């Protein structure tokens, strides 16, 4: 796994602040700065996922454009900017590669069941969560890290990972459960065991 040190708390605040300025004032300077901070990483991420340079470049532009269009929908109390941008990049990539629109639950859906305790979190908490998540990912045991890597960077469904690694599906599922409990602990603000 790569080192996960670049994204510090301070930068997390900066990103959230820039998105807010875009949402509130259609601030082009804020967008230019956000582009400088994010676009090279979005592109790097797409390249790691196997896109060629041209496709990664085009998709990056699409993603940044979507960031501009949807800035008002970003909820800083719920997720880090990088997490939000990850979901946009995922959706754009599926749209492009498979010509399919990715399907998401819609909070405006009359059937949508709200979380019982909807806790908006501060920028500080979100940034702390994100950095302990980085730490938890870096500290995953190799066999769990391997599985996560294949899911995010090799387009493998968990059943496909089992086939490719010649593992029983149950083993993949149980490793995943272990990894998830560490990651969720990190997000809940506890250090992984």
């Amino acid at each position: 796994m790569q080192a996960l040190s670049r994204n510090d708390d301070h930068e997390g605040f900066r990103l959230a602040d820039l998105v807010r300025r875009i949402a509130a004032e259609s601030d082009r300077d804020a967008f230019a700065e956000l582009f400088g901070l994010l676009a090279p990483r979005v592109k790097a991420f797409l390249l790691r996922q196997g896109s060629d340079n041209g496709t990664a470049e085009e998709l990056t532009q699409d993603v940044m454009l979507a960031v501009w269009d949807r800035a008002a929908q970003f909820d800083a109390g719920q997720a880090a900017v990088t997490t939000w941008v990850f979901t946009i990049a995922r959706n754009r990539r599926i749209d492009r590669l498979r010509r399919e629109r990715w399907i998401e639950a819609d909070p405006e859906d009359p059937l949508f069941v709200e979380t019982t305790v909807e806790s908006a979190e501060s920028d500080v908490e979100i940034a702390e969560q994100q950095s302990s998540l980085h730490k938890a990912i870096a500290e995953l045991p190799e066999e769990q890290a391997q599985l996560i890597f294949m899911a995010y960077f090799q387009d493998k469904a968990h059943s496909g990972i089992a086939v490719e690694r010649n593992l029983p599906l149950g083993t993949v599922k149980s490793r995943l459960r272990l990894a998830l409990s560490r990651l969720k602990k990190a997000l809940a603000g506890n250090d992984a065991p």
Partner: protein
Amino acid sequence: MTLPQLHPDDGYLLDYATGNLSVPFAVLIASHLTLCPACRDTVKAFEGVGGAFLGSSEPAEIATGSLAAVMQRLDRKTAVAAATPQPVTPALNGLGVGRLPRPLERFLSEMPKPPFWRRAYFGLRTVRIPNYGECRSRLMRIAPGSAMPRHTHAGNELLLVLQGGYSDHTGNYDVGDVAYGDPALVHKPRADADTGCLCFSVWDAPPLMVGPLAPILNKILPV
């Protein structure tokens, strides 16, 4: 509203978060997420992992003029309004099922022809949905108290209960619950006597009937 008690496992939620699901499975998971805050939290955790990977990527070189090109497009007429979800029921009115989770409503309303019920078995009606590669899906309505023939599954099946419920020897499945079927499961589901059961089922290989009538049922059942 009671919360779902039976959930897709972490593997499917990871596949959803990473975009590694075919459309019908993604529709089923997104419909469950509509009803299940707990699974939304899990997906959020997995998306956070994606965000961590993205945020920590060693920056790649961006083409010269890339920012200028994007800046020029900021003022274009956006399709944002069109992209925000609209109520999509008209095409589904003919089904007479009331509201369904929106991901499923959208999926059904985008079928090339308006969906309709057809009789599949005693007490079972289904809506056929076009295949996605190996992946098939059906909306199913089982009449109150009706039992399905004993069957197993050649591959993996996920089923989401939308209205009412059903039971088999593994337990009771109510609204929002996800049931999982594979070759290890042989069951004879029976819809609840008072409500019947409306559900959405997705599989990568068809169900297989078992028992003396199996050879005939497997041929004629238009599941």
